[in-house]
């Protein structure tokens, strides 16, 4: 997955690139803003992060131009906190809108959500030989089915998206809160142990491994 970053503040751009690289994305940065739209069109990026305040051009106009020819998902970034910018961006076809300073974990969550939406494969994900249905909130393996609660689904989804990698408790928490589930530390532990139980029922014992002081890994 490749992400194109259009941001004029160089310190911020570099950190953003590093953040995305660490999260396993390929990145490309625009430095010449006058020809930004050309680069946007020619780039093979799967997603574009676009700042609104740019030298020479306005991100919103850029987006409007770009949208006439491409449907590549675009997330707008801005330090302006005005509803007007958000309304404009959304009406010009932005897929999401995030205000600076952003919580890095949330930024990553939003990026993966937008990518998933645009890939349109989200409905039929699989985990080993079990089918994951986010719509029904269920896991099906052969004839046995386990219904996951909303919280369990959010946790499972995040672990599944980064299967084999460590997902920290903090990231899980952020994902839950971002979905309006204001759980506390204890509730998270309870949810994870329930999820483990349900996975075991399906025949995947020890699917979620605990890494002390780091987080969890879905195997």
């Amino acid at each position: 997955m490749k992400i194109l970053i259009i941001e004029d503040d160089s310190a911020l751009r570099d950190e953003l690139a590093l953040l995305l690289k660490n999260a396993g994305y390929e990145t490309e940065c625009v430095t010449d803003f006058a020809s930004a739209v050309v680069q946007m069109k020619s780039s093979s990026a799967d997603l574009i992060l676009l700042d609104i305040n740019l030298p020479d051009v306005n991100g919103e106009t850029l987006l409007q131009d770009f949208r006439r020819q491409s449907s590549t998902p675009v997330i707008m970034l801005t330090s302006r906190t005005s509803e007007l910018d958000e309304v404009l961006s959304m009406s010009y076809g932005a897929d999401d809108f995030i205000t600076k300073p952003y919580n890095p974990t949330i930024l990553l969550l939003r990026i993966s959500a937008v990518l998933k939406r645009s890939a349109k494969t989200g409905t039929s994900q699989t985990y080993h030989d079990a089918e994951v249905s986010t719509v029904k909130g269920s896991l099906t393996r052969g004839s046995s089915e386990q219904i996951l609660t909303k919280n369990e689904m959010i946790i499972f989804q995040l672990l599944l998206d980064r299967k084999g990698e460590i997902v920290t408790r903090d990231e899980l928490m952020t994902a839950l809160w971002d979905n309006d589930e204001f759980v506390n530390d204890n509730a998270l532990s309870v949810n994870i142990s329930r999820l483990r139980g349900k996975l075991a029922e399906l025949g995947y014992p020890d699917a979620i491994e605990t890494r002390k002081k780091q987080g969890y890994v879905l195997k």
Partner: protein
Amino acid sequence: MKLTEFIRDRLTAYLIYAITWALVLVFLIAFHVPAEAIIIVSILVLLGVTAAELWAFLRKKGYYDKLASDLSQLDKKYLLSEMLDEPEFLDGRILYSTICEADKSMCEHIAEYRRESSDFREYIELWVHEIKLPVAGLQLMCHNDGNTRYSEQLRRIDEYIENVLYYARSGSAEKDYIIKPVLLKRIFGDVAVRNRGELQERGISLHASDLEYEVMTDGKWLSFILGQLMSNSLKYEATEITVTGEDFTDRTVLHFRDNGIGIPESDLPHIFEKSFTGENGRTHTKSTGMGLYIVKKLCDRLGHAVEASSVQGEFTEIAIIFGRNELYRFE
């Protein structure tokens, strides 16, 4: 303008007339003018003077009465000069040109201040957007370096920056908000996520229910307002925050309740006043008396009512009341 007032004002003139007339009489008698002629001349002169005085009274009365009634009807008294016509009589013209000139100078003076204040506001807005870049940069650096120790302080810096921005916005005449349907749940979710670190660190439990209502407001402003309420709850030792929505036919009410130290009854009527810190302000050094004041001003501008209730040592509840006006819906 009353006739008696006019007469009293002209008394000196009448006295001069009277003395002059007395002297004339003395001369007329001295020259042996017949009594009939003296009476006829006296009546004619009296009629002439009365007519002249009446005319002078009436033309002034018309003008000044209109001026007085315009002034009393005007909501903004300084607009009086716009309503005035130039009178025909001399003292009226002098008054008229004086008022106009004073008014013009006043307008210039005010315009200068307005320009200065809007310049300052623009600068603040610009500054806020600029300072957010390094803050965003630092936040990413913390994350990339795996050092989250500073994140909390950065969040606080950001909160204070927002404070400045919204204070500048709350007082300006410009209309930089957009009223549109906003889902309460979405806004509260944003606020909760932003404050998650501190809430969890302090073991505060957050309950939100019945927030599936749409209200007509500016999402960004409301988000700031809720952020302020949240930061107050954190300041005043709450361990539980409950946010609920309530829907009526003509309004939606958002209740923001915490179980913090509460507000003394005597302070309650003043908490939305500027720089009011009250008893809690003396015991808690972090009070600036600005938070709720800005909240109230923003609510006023958005057209929401805001109410507070509290029992000291038990709870504090702030209710924001969103009116429902179908006029706002254009679809």
